């Protein structure tokens, strides 16, 4: 995308029928650190890569608990994400207060999408520069949604956003049909695997990632660093065994990434 005369204002259409400011906002999401979400029939798992600005600083918070049954992972401008999380929390609290029951996930994402849409149609505002993976459980089951700065939202079996998310999407594309039958632990393992794909060779440790789970009879919560490290270690042991058994097997996952650039089921 290059600068042109139609991209100054969010309220200016281009001759091709595009709103460039909105598309630039979606670019901001692509630049953020990766976040992935996976769903089975009973659980939803979110995992994010936490980049620290420097060795001296603490890691960015990218996963927020919205209510006992809903949590979000963000990619992009974390400040915008924080503000939206506060809005989502308020909506859940208000709904519970009036109706004495948890806000259904689909209703929450619609409100969030409408809020994002407002910012695409006011000359004195700018679109939110953050994409949200909304994971939640309600009467209708487990759900994973992706909310876009454009005001669009989609439901997914599994999705990844942020930088190098294509690697994670490719990994999940091969396996997503089985996710509905996965156990909670298998889901967590695959989430960490997907995060590992986005790191492209960097070492995966529990200090640079956050994993959160929500499930039937399991309120949304973030997993302890120790538990995450144990899962990572078990992944690594399996990989070392595979490498020892057949040297070629290691090469296969890396090669498949290049072949997957055609439109995949999960691409918008």
């Amino acid at each position, binding site marked *: 995308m290059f600068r042109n005369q139609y991209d100054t204002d969010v309220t200016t259409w281009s001759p091709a029928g595009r709103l460039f400011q909105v598309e630039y906002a979606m670019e901001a999401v692509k630049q953020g650190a990766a976040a992935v979400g996976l769903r089975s029939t009973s659980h939803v798992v979110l995992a994010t890569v936490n980049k620290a600005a420097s060795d001296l600083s603490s890691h960015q918070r990218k996963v927020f*608990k919205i209510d006992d049954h809903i949590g979000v992972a963000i990619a992009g401008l974390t400040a915008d994400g924080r503000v939206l999380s*506060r809005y989502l*929390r*308020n909506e859940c*609290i208000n709904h*519970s*207060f009036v109706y004495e029951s948890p806000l259904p996930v689909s209703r929450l994402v619609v409100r969030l999408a409408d809020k994002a849409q407002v910012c695409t149609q006011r000359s004195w505002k700018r679109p939110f520069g953050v994409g949200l993976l909304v994971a939640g459980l309600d009467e209708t089951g487990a759900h994973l949604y992706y909310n876009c700065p454009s005001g669009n939202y989609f439901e997914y079996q599994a999705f990844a956003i942020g930088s190098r998310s294509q690697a994670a999407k490719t990994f999940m594309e091969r396996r997503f049909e089985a996710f509905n039958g996965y156990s909670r632990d298998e889901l967590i393992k695959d989430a960490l695997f997907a995060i590992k794909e986005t790191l492209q060779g960097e070492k995966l440790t529990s200090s640079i990632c956050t994993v959160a789970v929500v499930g039937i009879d399991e309120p949304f919560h973030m997993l302890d660093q120790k538990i995450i490290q144990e899962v990572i270690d078990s992944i690594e042991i399996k990989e070392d065994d595979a490498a020892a058994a057949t040297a070629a097997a290691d090469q296969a996952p890396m090669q498949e990434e290049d072949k997957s650039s055609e439109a995949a089921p999960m691409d918008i």
Partner: protein
Amino acid sequence: MAIRGNWMYENNGGTCVAIAGADYCVIAADTRLSVGYSIYTRDYSKICKLADKCVMASSGFQGDLKALQKNLAAKHLIYQHQHNKQMSCPAMAQLLSNTLYYKRFFPYYTFNILGGLDSDGKGCVFTYDAVGSYERVGYSAHGTGAGLIIPVLDNQLKSPSPLLLPAKDAVTPLSEMEAVDLVKDVFASATERDIYTGDKVEILVINASGIRQELMELRKD
């Protein structure tokens, strides 16, 4: 039914008591809900757990109590999101006071007692009037049976008198078991003479290991 005077409110009767000990807190309330000379239900809880170590009991108008409990629960949730921890009992005490005074000119018709453990693990009891004036005390009672109960607590708890100045830390030297037995005794006594108190008493004990609940039967007449 002729409704004179407080037509916006109703007094549902009942009594609640709280006692603070060195490392525990006992909160109790009967479970009878009445209007006039009738009993609406024998099985209504006037106690609400607001936080891990903080429990509120109130007598008065139960409709306002339900609304007040929901209000505080929502505010507590917001606090937890912002501070990543539960509210302490003294913090909740201030919040309750502010919430009550917010409706100074159309009050919650509730007479509240807040009980729990403070940040040092010591028992604390806060007692309120309807518009939020509150004080930390060693023990308290509110409701239709309070007048029958407080003199007995004054006599039996062996705490320094709350009326002394300078205000002394008034937690009772009694053990947890003794305090619970005393609460059962005072409720049984109040039930004898107060028509609005009876059916069952719900007793909650908060200590370092958590919250324990007991139900004791009372006279049903």
